[in-house]
């Protein structure tokens, strides 16, 4: 019998305590952030959208190789012999034209593995997170600043250079062979 009344008393008392708690919380300040109107600034090192500082990129393709989902695509053209492509911010000399540097953010898994191997710190993750689009293809970000004409011009030059090189090599080979032949001609009787 005592237990019965004790139970009732405890039920009433605890309900009142609970109501007190909710009453206090009714007047405490809400913790909600009204997102599109008020934005919380993310920490500096948050891993959101990728960004590439093209002035610093030397086209070493370390990031492309490191990417586990292959979302980076780089194409480079060798710079001319006495062409000055400038220096990166940490003093490394640039030798390659980076004619294509595409990152597909739709594929990116935000692992940040591309950031660590970069020798010049050109590629990094930014706290920028609002890049939703209506079309998936717009998630493909192109960072290279070369125009198609420039690219074709550079490629043409490279092709010609290669041809010239190949021709030079062929000529060299031929010369070597001829020299060999000439040498062989003199040694012919000996080898027999």
């Amino acid at each position, binding site marked *: 019998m005592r237990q019965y009344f004790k139970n009732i008393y405890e039920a009433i008392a605890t309900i009142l305590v609970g*109501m007190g*708690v909710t009453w206090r919380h009714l007047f405490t300040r*809400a*913790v909600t952030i009204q997102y599109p109107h008020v934005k919380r600034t993310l920490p500096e090192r948050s891993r959101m959208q990728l960004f590439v500082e093209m002035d610093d990129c030397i086209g070493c393709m370390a990031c492309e190789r490191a990417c586990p989902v292959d979302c980076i695509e780089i194409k480079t053209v060798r710079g001319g012999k006495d062409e000055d492509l400038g220096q990166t911010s940490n003093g490394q000399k640039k030798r390659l034209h980076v004619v294509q540097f595409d990152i597909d953010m739709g594929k990116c898994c935000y692992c940040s593995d591309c950031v660590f191997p970069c020798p010049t710190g050109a590629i990094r993750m930014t706290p920028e997170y609002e890049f939703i689009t209506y079309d998936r293809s717009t998630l493909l970000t192109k960072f290279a600043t070369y125009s198609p004409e420039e690219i074709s011009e550079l490629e043409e030059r490279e092709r010609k250079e290669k041809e010239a090189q190949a021709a030079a090599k062929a000529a060299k080979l031929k010369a070597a062979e001829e020299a060999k032949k000439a040498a062989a001609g003199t040694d012919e009787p000996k080898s027999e």
Partner: protein
Amino acid sequence: MEPLVQFFFNLLPFLSDWPEWLALTVIGVAAAIMMFGFIAIFALIAIWLERKISGHMQDRLGPMEVGGWHGWAQTIADTVKLLVKEDIIPEKADRPLFKLAPMIVFTAALSGFAVLPWSSEFIPADLDVGLLYILSISSFAVIGILMGGWSSNNKWSLYGAMRGVSQVVSYEIPAALALLAVIMSAGTMSMRGLVMAQSGNILDWNVFNFFPLTTIAFFIYFIASLAEVNRTPFDLPEGESELVGGFHTEYSAMRFAFFFLGEYANMFVVSAIAATVFLGGWLPPFEALGFIPGPLWFVGKALLLVFVQMWLRWTLPRLRVDQLMYTCWKVLTPFSMAIILLIGLWKVL
């Protein structure tokens, strides 16, 4: 129906020249539409308020966008959404019963409004047995709940409906007994008579009349009424964590909205009964405040109780089925019996 007819004749004198049947029909339809309008507006405001209260009690904000100021138009937008949604009826459902169930639940809630005394002049029907009428009509809703749960042909709906029936039927007993205590002291069952018997200041109200007996009766009635309208902590019929949605699992669009509307109308009805029977209805707490019109006092007291219902909802977790039955049969019913006995003795001696 006399007070209401008198009210309309005073308001629009030309009605008394019409033939009686026409005038009565017009007045009846007008009153029903007014009550429906009141329920709709009350539900719009109460749902918004409930969301705001729940939000702030959990340190959130609740709806903030629709309509500008603190999301006041959120419920209107939701109503429009429910109106244009597809009305889905399960293939294996019992179609006539499925369609009838929300109508019965809402009709039961709406009929309760017939005897609510808004002020000394405005009471749709001043029945001699007003309280008995309202008790019987509110248990009518349980048929709608069982109907909805059964006809959905869904195990969760049926479980919810069965729980609802057992709960509502058992909690009617302490609710009726608690009201009986007041009926005994006031000597009338007419809603108007009950309010009239409490005239004076706040200490003449029935809550403080036979202190502390009627105060306990008031709390018993309030708890039992929470269970009757299926509000948390007694929302077992629709416990979403165990029964999906309970008896209204299969309902969508406007049929679901009518269940919802019925629930909120019921919340107001039980609060209004508590306000009438225990808190002096349309009477102001002090004679000096008599300049504020009666309906405002009546609605204000009812809304205060509605707020307490919401407050409890966001404070307490749901009861287990055995706890529910324990509370009803082993706590509320014996206590209300004891109160009736003591008040009877008091009256006799």
